[in-house]
């Protein structure tokens, strides 16, 4: 990162002069390329390179932060950070990680990142052609994108911490619009990782999702036995992920307060936070703490919350390496690494047989608004499939599904083998399909 070391030294000097005990610089840089194609032409094309640094100081035992994207005026930045530290009234101590060694992480090579722009554009163009050819009801595509990039993180501090990492990423997104008569519906699927040229699975998935929306009708209101499909389950878990954060528990903002070592889910349910997960491994978290695997739920019993250094010190435990920042400009908080429900034995098909009669929920909407992470209550718009005697009868829309996250977790009867991760962002959350005893559906 050009100019990083020089700016770092200037910031640390300025912090010391202002009377800080410690200082830490968190720097991220991202270079990315993305292209979206439409009807065989480039519709959108974007090249990005940006860098930001967040200075964190320890002043009279309190943390203060200041962020900038201009590598100038280290003194001004340090003064902002000190001003912010001075007003903190919360007495919890948030220590900085000192010098340490990190576990060896084996990241999959990603040659896609090194392709020429032309080659990347061709992947997107081919994806569009193949999606249109896949099913003659595909009328057009609303999105057909390929994105690649390299992001770097550097966390250095005056306690000797030197945490440096580089991540090479790529993903493809496809969203076909299908037409039958006057009716149009869109589907969506994405794929992360080095094998995005092998995109047939997402074409099929996106087209199947769109097809499922045709001829959908609502159902009678009432209680239904539910199969929550893997992608919908992962989204719901992601939305409620914050209830596992120790800092939320300590502030009285989590429904899991006081439930450690108690049963909070069906016996079939185990949840882990696994920073070593093969597709997205990392050596350290957002405050430079070496990665550890955490068993969060074991056979339905809550075994651990997710900790950063601050919440861990408060509870007298070790950090679970779950420090996270909501962007480089944000202070250190909590975030999952790869957080997922451990897969079970049964395939999606077998779970449909097991469901016998009820509803498969295939998508949930309104997750940013229709749920309460303090009480666990949710009421969300949903789509799905009506199942009778183990067979899918028809598509269902215009329903809401309502419940409570804890009650849902406790009502999980069976966990599928089809673990799927959602779109990464502040961590990566995954789930297999879940068979649930009942949820309240309102339709007509």
């Amino acid at each position, binding site marked *: 990162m050009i100019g990083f070391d020089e700016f770092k030294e200037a910031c640390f000097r300025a912090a010391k002069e202002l009377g800080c005990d410690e200082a830490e610089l968190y720097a991220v840089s991202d270079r990315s390329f993305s292209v979206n194609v439409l009807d065989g032409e*480039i*519709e959108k094309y974007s090249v990005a390179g*940006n860098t930001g640094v967040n200075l964190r100081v320890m002043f009279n035992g309190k943390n203060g932060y200041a962020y*900038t994207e201009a590598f100038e005026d280290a003194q001004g930045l340090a003064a902002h950070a000190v001003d912010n530290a001075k007003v903190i009234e919360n007495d919890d101590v948030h220590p900085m990680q000192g010098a340490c060694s990190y576990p060896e992480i084996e990241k999959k090579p990603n040659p896609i990142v090194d392709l020429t722009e032309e080659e990347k554009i061709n992947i997107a163009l081919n994806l569009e052609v193949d999606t249109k050819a896949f099913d003659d009801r595909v009328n057009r595509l609303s999105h057909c994108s390929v994105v690649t990039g390299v992001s770097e993180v550097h966390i250095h501090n005056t306690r000797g911490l030197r945490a440096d990492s580089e991540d090479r990423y790529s993903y493809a997104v496809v969203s076909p619009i299908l037409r039958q008569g006057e009716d149009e519906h869109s589907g969506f699927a994405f794929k992360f990782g080095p094998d995005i040229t092998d995109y047939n699975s997402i074409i099929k998935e996106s087209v199947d999702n769109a097809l499922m929306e045709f001829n959908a009708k609502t159902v009678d209101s009432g209680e239904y036995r539910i199969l929550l499909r893997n992608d919908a389950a992962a989204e719901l878990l992601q939305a409620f992920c914050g209830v596992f954060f120790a800092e939320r528990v300590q502030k009285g903002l989590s429904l899991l307060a006081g439930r450690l070592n108690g049963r909070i889910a069906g016996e079939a349910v185990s949840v882990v936070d696994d920073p070593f997960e093969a597709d997205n491994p990392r050596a350290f978290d957002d405050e430079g703490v070496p990665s550890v695997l955490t068993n969060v739920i074991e056979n339905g019993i809550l075994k651990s919350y997710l900790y950063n250094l601050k919440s861990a010190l408060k509870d007298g435990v070790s950090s679970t390496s779950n420090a996270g920042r909501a962007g480089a400009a944000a202070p250190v908080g909590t975030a999952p690494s790869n957080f997922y429900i451990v897969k079970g034995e049964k395939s999606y098909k077998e779970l449909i047989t097991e469901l016998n009669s009820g509803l498969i929920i295939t998508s949930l909407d309104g997750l940013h608004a229709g749920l309460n992470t303090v009480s666990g209550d949710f009421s969300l*718009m949903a789509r799905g499939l009506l199942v009778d005697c183990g067979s899918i009868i028809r598509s269902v829309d215009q329903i809401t599904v309502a419940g409570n996250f804890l009650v849902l977790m406790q009502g999980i009867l069976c966990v599928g083998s089809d673990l799927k991760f959602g779109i990464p962002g502040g961590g990566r959350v995954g789930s297999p399909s879940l068979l649930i005893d009942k949820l309240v559906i309102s339709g007509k």
Partner: protein
Amino acid sequence: MINNSIISAVLYEALKTGGDFSELFLQDTEMNSVSMVNGKVETANYQRKVGAGVRVLKGTSSAYAYCSELGEEALIAAAKAAAAALKGAREFETKAVCAERLGRSGARIPFSEIDNLKRIELLKRGTEAAKAHSSEITQVIASYMDCDHRIWVYNSEGVHAEDRRPRTRFAVQSVAMADGVAQTGSVSPGFGMGFEAYSERIDAEKVGARASEIAVTMLHAPECPSGQMPVVIDGGFGGVILHEACVHGLEATSVGRGNSVFCNKLGQRIASDIVTAVDDGTIPGEWGSMNYDDEGNPAGRNVLIENGVLKSYLVDILGSRLMDHPVTGSGRRQGYDFAPTSRMTNTFFAPGKDDEAEMIASMGEGLFAAKMGGGSVDPLTGEFNFAVSEGYWVKDGKIAYPVRGATLIGKGADVLMKIDRVGKNMWMEPGMCGSVSGSIPTNVGQPRIRVSELTVGGKGGSK
């Protein structure tokens, strides 16, 4: 901010591969935020975002490159990177500056004159009022944000625009608990003003007390019954129904590519004839207002629906090429790291003629949604959903008791036709709207309205 010869060189470089339009966008934004939990300052943060974006258009194709550096070398590199999307030779030249548009900040008390102690004093006042409301309040989170957002736009057609948009927001979230059950209430006013907002528009104590009132009311509310029923939606944030269920479908982002239920409907009836809807970015001091948009065009007041008839879409430069529709001053972006697209500003149902009390008195049995939460929509089908954060059950035309956990779902096109009352007093409330060009401040607003039939979701059994 950057000298004119560099700007000209960037715009010129960007057109060298055959582009017909180039644009340089610069941003320098300073933001301060402070949060308080139960009366103690928890975090204080400062951030400055600085960067540039270069856009090249050729017909309806667009290329964008951005960087967080403002040096000549970095800007020329960005211009080259954007131009690389095209493979042709130069066809267009850049024009000399012919439209200079300089927007004034309008902040009477700039945030640079305010220190953290002033910010904290507001948080303490809001927190104390929230706690004093009821002994059932167990947690109060208060937060404050101020932002001085400055942008510069230059394009190859000779536009040079600058805008400065101060804005500030204050929020209190209260948690009420009893018998292991928790409910929350939150209130978060925001304005496009300097610190004078706190003497002129925002009363910290009222914000805190109202947040607690909602939390305590919902704590003692039974679950909302579900089914289809008449719904009265109160003014202010109730306008989220218009934002989600309709106006997202009027943005060129969806209309321009034929992906909206409102395509090809200009001049047609899309709502009941008592409905008029407006997007107005020109109102001084409002959360979603601006002088010039992020493409350098003057912010617009756009009547979208007039007496039920569709009058206009929201159109940015690229959208105007796709749709053969004039630009409406609606090009917006979160910052330099996003290319602009058509977005809302302050969007509301205009005041109507109906009496606010009568519309409940004559509704029979149904839901009164006093405060709405957020929601989302599929622009292709117009299907929306949103949460009701404070609801009341209406029986025999009278408000009977509060209900919690309600959601409203439906299709935008249906709901617009089913509005049968529009009240007289309109007000707006702020939100953050996320879309392809990032997260931007927008106001939603309306007077109290009634929808003759809507699907209500909830756990309180069938109606």
